[in-house]
């Protein structure tokens, strides 16, 4: 039996008195497209930071593709592609150099140009990333995450800083990767895009996973009509209290 792509058990992170994530229990099956939703500050990035070994948990356990994400980081990251949130690229290095760093470290045989073509950046392959707009940096990071056909693609707020074309591009990439058999786990505080791409969503609110399921099931749970959006579900569950944080952020 294949292990889940992501499995957490009581995963918690505290900074002093502040609870960033409170005993998260979550399972994402392999092959799923899972939308990890919630307003800013809900703990989405904390969760991804924990799964990626950027930070260490206060308590709880996690498995990523069956690996311990903290002690088995090499085997784990060999099969994971990450498109992080709030990053800068290396300003003096070209797009090609960025991809070569990932390709060579993963010992993959991808062609940098082909990857950049997938994200519409092939023309900029030799340009230093310091000249890139935020949207271009986001596309470059997306291309880097696709290196080596990862079994799990983690996209942290992938729609940030993208124009409508970029948003459509991310959706296409998610669909293509899912078709290939990869699991896609992405976080978003922008709810509009989620209906179109997700098999299942989980809504994180104040460090707690308050609900999780397929969209039809969630509509039923919340007693909403079949054309209700993720946003409606989200509003119902949080009594609208998270509304401002969710859309303004």
């Amino acid at each position: 039996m294949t292990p889940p792509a992501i499995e957490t058990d009581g995963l918690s992170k505290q900074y002093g008195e502040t609870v960033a994530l409170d005993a998260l229990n979550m399972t994402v099956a392999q092959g799923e497209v899972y939308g990890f939703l919630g307003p800013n500050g809900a703990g989405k990035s904390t969760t991804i930071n924990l799964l990626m070994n950027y930070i260490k948990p206060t308590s709880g356990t996690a498995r990523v593709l069956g690996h311990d994400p903290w002690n088995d980081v090499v085997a784990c990251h060999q099969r994971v592609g990450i498109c992080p949130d709030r990053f800068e690229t290396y300003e003096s290095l070209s797009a090609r150099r960025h991809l070569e760093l990932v390709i060579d470290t993963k010992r993959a045989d991808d062609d940098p140009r082909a990857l950049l073509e997938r994200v519409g950046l092939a023309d900029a392959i030799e340009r230093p990333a310091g000249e890139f707009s935020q949207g271009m940096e986001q596309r470059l990071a997306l291309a880097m995450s696709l290196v080596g056909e990862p079994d799990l693609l983690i996209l942290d707020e992938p729609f940030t800083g993208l124009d409508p074309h970029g948003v459509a591009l991310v959706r296409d990439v998610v669909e293509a990767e899912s078709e290939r058999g990869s699991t896609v786990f992405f976080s978003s505080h922008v709810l509009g895009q989620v209906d179109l791409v997700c098999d299942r969503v989980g809504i994180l609110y104040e460090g707690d996973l308050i609900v999780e399921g397929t969209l039809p099931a969630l509509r039923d749970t919340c007693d909403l009509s079949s054309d209700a959006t993720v946003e409606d579900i989200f509003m119902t569950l949080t009594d609208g209290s998270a509304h401002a944080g969710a859309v303004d952020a």
Partner: protein
Amino acid sequence: MALPRWFPVARKEAVALLKSKGTWILAPLLVVWGYGPTYESWDVLGPNVTVGFVQVAGSILLPLGVLLLTYRSIIQERTSGSLKFLLGLPLTRTDILIGKVFGRSVGAVLPFALATVILGVIGGVKFGLFSPLRFIGVFLVTVLYIVVLVSVATAASAVTTSTVRVTGALFGGFFLILTLGWKRIGVSIYSAVTGNAVNPFEPPADGLLFAILRFSPGRAYRTVTNWILGTGNSGGLYTSVIDVLYRGISTNEYVVDATFSGQLVPVYLHESLGLVVLLFWGVVPLALAGYRFKRGDLA
């Protein structure tokens, strides 16, 4: 044989450094800084005075330059968030530190190597053929010194959470105290420990005093290079050592051969042990920093 996992990180670090102007500004500055023939050193060393230029190039300006080129290597990636790319690769955090040190060392050695070649050519033309073995020996020890400096700077960069702190620790602590001011501070430590006042112009023949002075990476570097150059057993610049030993000038430089003249010199003051001091500085700070870096939150 497969390249180590961290090799692409090292390559990226070296490329980024070699693309920066500062790296290449360092090369001509080192030439100007290092080149300084004197009649006295010519009298003692002959054509090998050129080898001495390399030692001068490796003192004060080189450590300052290398620290400047390296001190932000990790903290900058941490604050900008690009560290998330490195941490997301199939690498341990130790791999990342090793790749950083290796790549930055290559990036810092190249401008120094260029300066060395220029000094060699100028010196060779003006003062005749020097001993190639001594020249290469001093060059290699300086390369080791560069790696040590990169290692210390990377260590500081890895454990601090703000650029201000790493700047303070490296330039205030490491450079100012251990590299630039250690002669004075080392002597104060010796006096505090033993209760003996030290007249720098006539220091006591006490091995402990010299051992403390030698603990500075810069003085350890010069002890080894003076040994290769054949000037004398001292952590001072070769020109100061020549002043003391050959011209009989009483200076405030500490030279074992002068202070211990006619007495038995403790074994631990042998010049080769300067290499051990350099290795200590290359390994210990990075190992301590690595211990924390491996366990800490980096995002």
